[in-house]
């Protein structure tokens, strides 16, 4: 905290600023207009992920508008002296994947990016949140942001997840429980034995979708899992600095018995694989459930919103979703494109074939992950099953790069948003875990993975 003044928001120092091609060009233009420099290029890192194709990197970017956007970031990074993981760089990847994997994201930091899934970095006990382009310009110019304090919101997840139930199901259950606006104005802290038992990659999956329950940020207190993940990574401290850092990081967790402004809980013991049926991530249910009936909703606007969602999705109230025919399976995105996600999907696809009516795309979150997966032979498992193994990027999570559904198609997707048209105009998305996605890829219909374990 640089400054706090009566009446004005606090001036918050930003320890790490991640930049991508879509929300930054206008911010750099603004800097040029005001004749400003990037104040701390050494705390700023840029990559391309949203507009970039996931076809082989030997091919050029076909879409001239996307190519111009990627080119613009490269120029901006060069002009302002910002480290840049470009299209051909061995460290390129989804901005929320490369931060952690390079050790850039560390406990206690403030992390921002012009992207609402910045909450991902909260898995390390960092305060990480998405900002708009005006704020990107603010951070580039001053390395600070004007901020008001958020409410604290405890999400306690206790118990033990059963086989077939994953971190993705925890966060989809939270979205379903409190709704897409449930955490507005708050920062989540995920606590409880089930959260402690999660790997760092799984914690990232949970924190990633905090925004889908309305909270700009969500975090997990750092512990030995956090330190073990960070040790030895490129930008993590080393030697004596490492010991000093760990000692400081150990002081970060919330005091026992601390009071939160808000709280909720999820029972891991009884949690089932989750899936969404509607057009926002809060419209989700256990995979054994039935599509809800708008007739049973009291509030008129809410009822109309549900009716509109089911009409868009082409679903009938009261029917189970399991067995619904699908056209595409997408395994990727900043939610679920890390090694553990790919291993989980491969464990289902190994020795099985993808259903003939389904296109299956597997898109690793970064070039580092792609190489690691190939070293483990996961690419062969995917290819032999009939799935596509592609280059790193956001791909069909946001459908800006040519990877998209056609109107009316259904997908089971490991991404984070099922908004109308999110995966391509007229496309219809069921959000689920990598296990559920892989199981559905094999059968060609929405499938409870527990029937295949």
């Amino acid at each position, binding site marked *: 905290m*640089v400054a706090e003044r009566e009446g004005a928001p606090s001036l918050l120092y930003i320890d790490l600023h991640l930049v991508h091609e879509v929300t930054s060009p206008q911010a750099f233009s603004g800097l040029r207009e005001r004749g400003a420099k990037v104040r701390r290029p050494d705390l700023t890192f840029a990559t391309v992920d949203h507009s970039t194709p996931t076809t082989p990197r030997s091919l050029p970017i076909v879409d001239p508008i996307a190519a111009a956007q990627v080119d613009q970031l490269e120029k901006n990074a060069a002009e302002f002296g910002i480290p840049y993981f470009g299209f051909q760089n061995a460290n390129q990847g989804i901005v929320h994947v490369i931060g952690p994997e390079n050790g850039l994201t560390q406990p206690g930091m403030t992390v921002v990016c012009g992207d609402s899934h910045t909450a991902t970095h909260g898995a390390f006990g960092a305060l990480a949140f998405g900002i708009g382009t*005006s704020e990107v310009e603010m951070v580039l110019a*001053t390395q600070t942001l004007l901020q008001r304090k958020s409410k604290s919101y405890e999400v306690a997840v206790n118990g033990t997840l059963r086989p077939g139930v994953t971190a993705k199901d925890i966060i989809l259950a939270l979205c379903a429980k409190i709704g897409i606006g449930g955490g*507005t104005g708050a920062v989540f802290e995920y606590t409880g034995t089930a959260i402690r038992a999660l790997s760092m990659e799984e914690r990232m999956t949970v924190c990633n979708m905090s925004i889908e329950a*309305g*909270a700009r940020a969500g975090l997990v207190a750092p512990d030995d899992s956090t330190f073990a993940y960070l040790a030895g990574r490129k930008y993590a401290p080393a030697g004596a600095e490492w010991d000093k850092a760990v000692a400081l990081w150990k002081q970060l967790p919330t005091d026992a018995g601390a009071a939160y402004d808000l709280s909720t809980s999820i029972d891991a013991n009884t949690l089932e694989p989750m899936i969404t049926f509607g057009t926002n991530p809060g419209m989700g249910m256990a995979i054994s459930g039935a599509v809800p009936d708008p007739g049973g909703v009291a509030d008129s606007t809410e009822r109309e*919103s549900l009716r509109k969602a089911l009409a868009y999705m082409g679903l009938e109230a009261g029917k189970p979703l399991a067995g619904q025919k699908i056209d595409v399976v997408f395994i990727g995105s900043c939610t679920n494109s890390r090694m553990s996600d790919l291993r989980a999907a491969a464990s289902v696809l190994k020795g099985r074939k993808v259903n003939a009516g389904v296109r299956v795309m597997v898109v690793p979150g970064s070039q580092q992950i792609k190489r690691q997966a190939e070293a483990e032979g996961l690419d062969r498992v995917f290819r032999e099953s009939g799935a596509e193994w592609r280059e790193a990027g956001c791909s069909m999570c946001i459908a800006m790069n040519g990877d998209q559904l056609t109107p009316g198609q259904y997908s089971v997707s490991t991404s984070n948003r099922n*908004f109308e*048209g999110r995966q391509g105009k007229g496309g219809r998305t069921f959000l689920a875990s990598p296990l559920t996605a892989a199981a559905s890829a094999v059968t060609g219909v929405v499938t409870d993975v527990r029937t295949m374990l």
Partner: protein
Amino acid sequence: MKIDSTVTQFLVDNIDTDQIIPARFLKTISKVGLGDQLFYDWRYNADGSPKPEFVLNTEKAKKSQVLVAGDNFGCGSSREHAPWALTQYGFQAVISTSFADIFKNNSLKNRLLPIVVSKEVHTALLGALAADPDLRVSVDVEAQTVSWTGGPSVTFPIDAFSKHCILAGVDEIGYVQQHEAQIAAFEAGRVLSLNTLG
């Protein structure tokens, strides 16, 4: 800043920024020309022709500066293209029962007022609009009030600093740059802080 305008109604809850402006329009490196892309997939047919029945395609909406929307308006993606598109279409205020946090921030930085009212006031306004579709509402930022003929004058909350910036036309980045000495002093002390990057 005062607004006196007819009202455009768009009563769907949880309108996300992907609807306000679909992602495929974010490949631009400029801020302009986004007004025509506002609510593109709800507003135009597959061949690009406007859907005449969609509210934003009516002459009345095009002249209106106030949008009344459902709960949790602007959820989802942080794209500032959403308020850019809304203001370029002509809106200066959105009235709802709640707004998503990032959208609210982005709006205030673009002189688009996110006006939060209670469910009761929202219902009363919709009732007044049902009785008179040409009803005009008045918004006074200085007084923080929204009112209409025959209705109450309702106070709405707005962050004091944002209000000051809107009314005085303050450049927020310029304001923060005046704190350079404090920022530099904080940075000097960061050697002992948690940060290990620099």
